[in-house]
């Protein structure tokens, strides 16, 4: 099964899930609900896109939740303490997140740390850093002050497509949140990079076989650092969308989000054994998780059951990935055997 047909299979499963809840769950099939799905899970999709890069390199980035908090707090401090204008805050927060991601890459490359260990360490370190720079604690009163900068709050706006096209008398379409378009832009940009640039090819090569890549003259270290920086970049973008949605940042922001992002990426067919997968899969994976969570809530099913089910789906996805991996290996050995 090729990566493309795996994505199509996932898409079919997603559509089937949507269809199930469309008819089974009360008030699932409403414009408002689709809006909620888009605004509530676009940032998860962006995190999943970011997570795909380390996983493509057979690595993992556990620190993205903490990077979300870090970028969020940088934005919080710059707006509420230093009174920077929003158009400066946005790139600054994303830059901070990208640097935090790049540092992960540097630790992995220069110190030859396992990605799991390196990002587990920075997960703790970045979270501690968030507490120490938290404007909520440094300046009394800021913990109850919302962010009102129009550049930032503007990220949480909605587009009335039907109204713009003059169709609102004929059909009620959901208002599409800006965060959804941001997600589409991130997806388009990075998918192009993966599919059509030298860097993309190098990334797949390194993920598939590091030694071969090194022998082929690819700068493995640089590719790795860039991959983790991209993961940080995505966490920064997601953080800004969250800050816009919440009108504040908290120290605990993003806790546990790495789990959702990794789950979405793996469900999306990005192979844990590296080198295989596209960015469409993680996005579909994120919205699949969102659909299931919202659908089950509307059906009145306990959230503990929801968490168990999410775990079950993740397990199934990992098992499926393993099966594909073993099948590829068998085919490879068979081919080698034929040649010999």
């Amino acid at each position, binding site marked *: 099964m090729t990566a493309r047909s795996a994505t199509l299979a996932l898409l079919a499963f997603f559509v089937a899930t949507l269809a199930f809840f469309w*008819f089974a769950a009360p008030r699932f099939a409403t414009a408002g609900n689709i809006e*909620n799905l888009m605004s509530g899970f676009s*940032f998860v999709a962006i995190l999943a896109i970011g997570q795909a890069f380390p996983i493509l390199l057979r690595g993992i980035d556990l620190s993205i939740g903490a990077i979300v908090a870090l970028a969020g707090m940088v934005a919080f401090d710059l707006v509420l303490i230093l009174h920077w204008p929003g158009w400066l805050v946005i790139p600054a927060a994303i830059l901070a997140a990208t640097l935090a991601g790049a540092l992960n890459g540097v630790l992995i490359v220069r110190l030859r740390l396992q990605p799991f260990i390196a990002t587990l360490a920075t997960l703790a370190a970045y979270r501690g850093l968030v507490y120490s720079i938290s404007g*909520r604690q440094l300046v009394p009163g800021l*913990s109850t002050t919302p962010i009102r900068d129009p550049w930032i709050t503007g990220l949480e706006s909605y587009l*009335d497509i039907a109204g713009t096209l003059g169709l609102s008398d004929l059909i*009620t379409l959901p208002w599409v949140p800006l965060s959804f378009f941001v997600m589409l832009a991130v997806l388009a940009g990075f998918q192009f990079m993966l599919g059509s640039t030298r860097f993309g090819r190098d990334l797949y090569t390194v993920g598939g076989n590091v030694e071969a890549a090194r022998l082929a003259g690819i700068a493995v270290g640089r590719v790795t650092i860039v991959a983790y920086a991209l993961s940080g970049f995505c966490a920064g973008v997601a953080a800004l969308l969250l800050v816009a949605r*919440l*009108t504040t940042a908290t120290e605990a922001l993003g806790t546990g989000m790495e789990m959702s992002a990794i789950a979405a990426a793996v469900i999306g067919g990005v192979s844990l054994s590296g080198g295989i997968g596209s960015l469409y899969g993680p996005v579909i994976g994120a919205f699949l998780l969102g659909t299931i969570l919202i659908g089950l*809530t509307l059906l009145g099913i306990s959230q503990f059951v929801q968490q168990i089910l999410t775990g079950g789906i993740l397990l199934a996805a990992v098992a499926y990935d393993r099966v594909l991996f073993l099948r590829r290996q068998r085919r490879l050995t068979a081919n080698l055997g034929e040649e010999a």
Partner: protein
Amino acid sequence: MSEIESVGAHRRNFLKSLALGSAAVGAASAGLFTDVATGTIGVPAARAAGNIKMAFIQWQPHTVSSAWSKGIEEVLKTQQTVDYRLLDGQNKVEVQVSLMDTLINEGAAVIFLQPIDSVALAPSIAKAKRAGIAVLTLNIDATEPHAAHVEMNHYFGAMDIAKALGDKLGGKGEVAILNAPPGIIIRDQRTNGFVDGLKKHHPGIKIVADQSADWSRKKAQDVATTLLAANPNLGGFYGVNDSMALGAVDVAKTKGLIGKLVIFGNDGEKDALESIEKGELTGTQYTDVYQQGRFAAAAATVLASGLVPATAFKQQGKLLMPYTIATKETVASIQPAQRW
């Protein structure tokens, strides 16, 4: 009207007037469920069709919130016309926001909310208000005005704790505060009330330390040990919650200081009351949290059955819970059924 058509009705009506929408839905479903009548005179047509929905979004599973939920459920069940459920915020603001969106879309009549953060949930509360949904917050207020806030009497209760603690110390000596981490309103209320209470009733008592023990019994044991070593003349502890006060009790036990140290907690949970009966913990502020849930549910029921929309409020309602300062002398008055 078939299910799909009625779903279509939902979609078409969503972005137009919500009032118009709910009336149409009400009329549509009134045709579907012929009057199995509630027996009440003058029940509006829209209501006769089915039960109204209320939900409580808690912070995370905890003794306090589950006791609230029990109290809420007791009252709502009796009404026969309310479907109630408890939803778990998983200690994550974005989960609470997503659940708020889902409940707004579902057309809940009332949302009970224990916000994780006062600012982060404000946009969701505003959204609920626009949809005519009454939001009642429990214990932690939000910066966006809403229907009502029902809280344990944090500030005035802490003043009374200061008075009782000072009385036990004979009006002089040194005390330390085992505090919560900053950034949450109730921490400030419970601390400021204590500080102001000492100033007012016992100006001779000095606060020599105010340290965070993260709400935790374990952490409080470490902090209390350090504080005792650093302040040999320390006469007492005030734990901002019972867990931290009980941590100080643990330390007092191992050091043979029971009876010598005056230790007060706050909340009044079962373990604390038992510790007071055993003569270990000196006292705590006890609130009947079942009752707090019942009060919130009573207010909600009156609003919903009186068809009072969220927008009818000129300003936010507020209800402070009655409390007892439980000490060895008064603890017996708290009945087993009131303990949580």
